[in-house]
């Protein structure tokens, strides 16, 4: 259950990036989370509501895009998607695969904000 610390980092990072947009309100935060990132979406959502209270992120929506695990298969010379995390073998040729190309991401992709118009 380290989702609360993860959500706290999200709040810090987003709040920092808002410095460039004074008074802006956050509507949505989009994450890219690899299927092997050890993070559970339900726990993230649960913690998000609590951790964003009284912050510029309060009331915003958290969108979690889960990215499949992609490994490079040497014999096939291709990147292949690992559907079951029970076996790290190429789904095409059956050879073991070691070289991960995607699957451990844990990042904030973008935020959607409502900007306050400049007062003239």
């Amino acid at each position: 259950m380290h989702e609360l610390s993860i959500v706290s980092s999200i709040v810090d990072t987003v709040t920092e990036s808002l410095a460039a947009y004074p008074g802006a309100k956050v509507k949505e935060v989009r994450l890219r989370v690899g299927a092997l990132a050890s993070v559970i979406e339900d726990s993230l959502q649960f913690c998000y509501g609590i951790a964003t209270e009284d912050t510029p992120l309060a009331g915003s929506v958290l969108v979690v895009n889960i990215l499949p695990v992609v490994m490079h298969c040497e014999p096939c010379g291709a990147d292949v998607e690992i559907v079951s995390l029970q076996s790290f073998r190429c789904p095409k040729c059956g050879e073991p695969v070691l070289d991960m190309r995607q699957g451990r991401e844990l990042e904030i992709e973008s935020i959607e904000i409502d900007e306050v118009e400049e007062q003239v």
Partner: protein
Amino acid sequence: MTTRIVELRRGILKKNDELAAGLRNRYTSAGVLVLNLVSSPGTGKTAFLELTLKALRARNARVAALVGDLETDNDARRLASSGAPVRQINTHGICHLDAEMIDKHLDGWQLGDLDYLFIENVGNLVCPSSYDLGERVRVALLSVTEGEDKPLKYPTLFNSADAAVITKIDLAVPCGFDRELALKNINEIRPGIRIFETSAKTGAGMEEWLDYLAQERAR
């Protein structure tokens, strides 16, 4: 009011990853091999480490350990009986060690005076896998009492490990441990990984493990 999408592309654990990269540089320039030991509570990390520290000291290696637990310094006291410098990290409820905790607890230690530094993580097979501690070798441990399918249940950790250690191998027979199946499962999740079958009680598998440590350090 204007709506705007701001691309951030920022790693959520960026702060930890940067600190870990800094630690990794320090370890490398000091010439110390750092290992991060991860398992469930009760696998026998402390007993395994206690024996490892003693055996390495007997080979005249300079060793130290950091040990993480939610509360108590019981493990640090056990490990200190090996004669090696040991520090306890109490996380007070946090389920993993992070790079900042390591950095803080290394204060005052001369890394250049060490050959090996072991970090015994908090007993947990999930959360520690997200936090880089700057280690060169991540070790996933599994005891024969836990069941052969543990690697399949926790692929995140086993897939990120550099070595796997099976502990309590002396209990394999009474527990009905299916060794072949366990080895197969570990290999399905992390093909080709080095696997050590050990017992802290009988000392089985320790020679092979110590040789591996020496090889890794020499690399």
